[in-house]
């Protein structure tokens, strides 16, 4: 693997607004990278600077070893799939796909077969002579994809490519996009604000916040070891709480909404410290019915407020002191509804001390 894109201290200011604040990033050839973050965090601006549609205030973009920072879009070997697809309404599907080949020195005789080949890659062989207006949303999406990959760009940029599709089609297109990536072997950089989409599709996720990169990593490490509470909260659900650290008898304890919990995580150093943030994933905890006696474990006592049915699992909302703790329970064969607590019941939340993650208070690390 080699580096195809290198971004150094890239910054974009719109007057007083800072769109992207000194981002540095390196992307390997063939990678599927997503830029993930809430609205306004600068994902599109970063992508548009790579595409050449926004001029950076400062910083450098290297494409395959060449400094392309000041090159116009038509002189960069990258192509973009626009959020609104941006299909030319006065051209047929085939003309749209062939558009980019007309300037790239492709012999005329070669354009037609290349267009046909690319259209078949996205499953639209029979639509070459159709007008884009006659296509469904998913089909337009595919035309936009075909038009962008037909030029074999070094990097394919996608700005929220699936956001205009309904939920079912969206899931189907996620798989198709991923397959397409495997098939064509191009480097994909995709913008999304949907964390599950980012986890499903990418080799690597770049989580952004306020124009900065908050954390970069593969989906598993982002989920299992979020670098800060912001990432923990944004990717998947996390029960977050602030607490000082207390050591006694060689064990370390934190307080979760007034109740003591043992924590045993390598990143927590045991030196009693001022308040820090801690959190654990809902599916790492276990819900135990009170039944009059106190069970064994690392426990929080609370009252079951609500049970949310999610199909493959249920999410229990437990009131613990001032806060609410989420516990996810997988609905597999071992699940017995008769033994599950009902709303209003006294319950215990059992959490493994290893599964509680410490975070710096300000979310910086």
């Amino acid at each position: 693997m080699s580096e195809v894109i290198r971004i150094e201290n890239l910054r974009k200011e719109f007057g007083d607004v800072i769109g992207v604040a000194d981002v540095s990033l390196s992307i390997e050839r063939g990678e599927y990278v997503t830029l993930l973050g809430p609205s306004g965090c600068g994902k599109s601006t970063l992508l548009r600077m790579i595409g050449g549609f926004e001029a950076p205030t400062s910083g450098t973009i290297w494409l395959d070893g060449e400094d392309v920072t000041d090159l116009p879009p038509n002189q960069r070997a990258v192509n973009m799939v626009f959020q609104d697809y941006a299909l030319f309404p006065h051209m047929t599907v085939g003309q749209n796909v062939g558009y980019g080949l007309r300037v790239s020195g492709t012999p005329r005789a070669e354009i037609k077969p290349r267009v046909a080949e690319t259209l078949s890659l996205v499953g639209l062989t029979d639509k070459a002579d159709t007008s884009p207006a006659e296509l469904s949303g998913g089909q337009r999406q595919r035309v936009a994809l075909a038009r962008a990959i037909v030029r074999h760009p070094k990097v394919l940029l996608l700005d929220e490519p699936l956001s205009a599709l309904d939920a079912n089609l969206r899931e189907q297109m996620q798989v198709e996009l991923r397959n397409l990536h495997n098939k064509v072997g191009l480097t994909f950089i995709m913008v999304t604000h949907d964390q599950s989409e980012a986890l499903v599709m990418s080799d690597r996720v770049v989580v952004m916040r306020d124009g900065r990169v908050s954390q970069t990593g593969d989906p598993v490490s982002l989920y299992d070891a979020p670098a800060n509470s912001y990432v923990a909260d944004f990717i998947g659900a996390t029960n977050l709480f602030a607490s000082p650290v207390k050591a006694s008898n060689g064990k370390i304890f934190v307080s979760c909404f007034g109740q003591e919990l043992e924590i045993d995580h390598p990143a927590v150093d045991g030196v009693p410290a001022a308040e820090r943030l801690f959190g654990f994933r809902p599916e790492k905890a276990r819900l135990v019915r009170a039944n009059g006696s106190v069970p064994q474990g690392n426990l929080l006592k609370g009252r079951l407020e609500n049970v949310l049915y999610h199909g493959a699992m249920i999410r229990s909302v437990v009131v613990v002191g001032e806060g609410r703790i989420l516990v996810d329970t997988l609905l597999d064969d071992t699940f017995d509804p008769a033994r599950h607590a009902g709303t209003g019941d006294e319950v215990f939340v059992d959490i493994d001390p290893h599964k509680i993650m410490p975070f710096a208070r300000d979310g910086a690390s």
Partner: protein
Amino acid sequence: MRLATRNRLSSGGVLSLPLVWTFLFLFIPYAILFIYSFWEKKFPTFVPAFQFGNYLELMVDPQYVRVLLRTIKIAGLVSLLSLLLAYPYAYFLVHKVKRPGVKLVLYMAVVLPLWVSYLLRAYTWKTILGTQGILNSFLVSTGILSEPSSVFLYNQTAMVVTLTYVFIPFMVMPIYAALEKIPGSLTEASRDLGMSAIQTFVRVTLPLSMPGVIAGFTMTFCLSFGDFIAPFLVGGPDGMMIANVIATQFGAALNWPLGSALALVMLVIVLTIITLSDRLQGVGRGKYA
């Protein structure tokens, strides 16, 4: 239920008013013209008849054909000149002016003169181009001319200039609207796919703004085609247009039948142009997907 009935009644009322209006003030006058066009000129006035003499005269007498061709030429030149001036202006407004306030002011600068009386606007050019006018004073004061010249006024060029000035808002408005409607992502996509800014303009912006160009061309052409004030104010002897001839037939010449026939020929020409332009629009219209 009652509400629905009332709605239907009121919508019927709303619709019928313009219908009655159109019937009274458009259809009936044209019907009268149509009838007159078959009447016969009998000195000193004219008498009812059914004959095609008036139409025949229009075809045979070369002076009418000449005026008609001149009118088409002048209207065509006005539309062309308007287009050449209006397109870059509208493009500049849509793509180069970033501040919305400035954009509004520059747009209004074109549209606002429409609120000023047409006659006044046409008359302005008489004062600019005349022997006592601004142009002559300037040329004389800078020494380019030794004495005021009369070549600027009372000719076809003066008419084209005046009519362009008067009707150019009708070219700017539809082109501006068409350009404004083109999503920015389309030009970006074209650049992204390797086209230069100029290639992008030729292949994307221009074709997609054609509906505006056609609409503007149709309006400026039809408006100047039927104009009779500019020829009257700045046109001079060789500047007569078809509407002036019609006015003369209904006035001094007292030949209403011939005037009616001419008016109907004009109507047919204008309707043909509007129909053609509508067809063209249908062909060029791309729906933004």
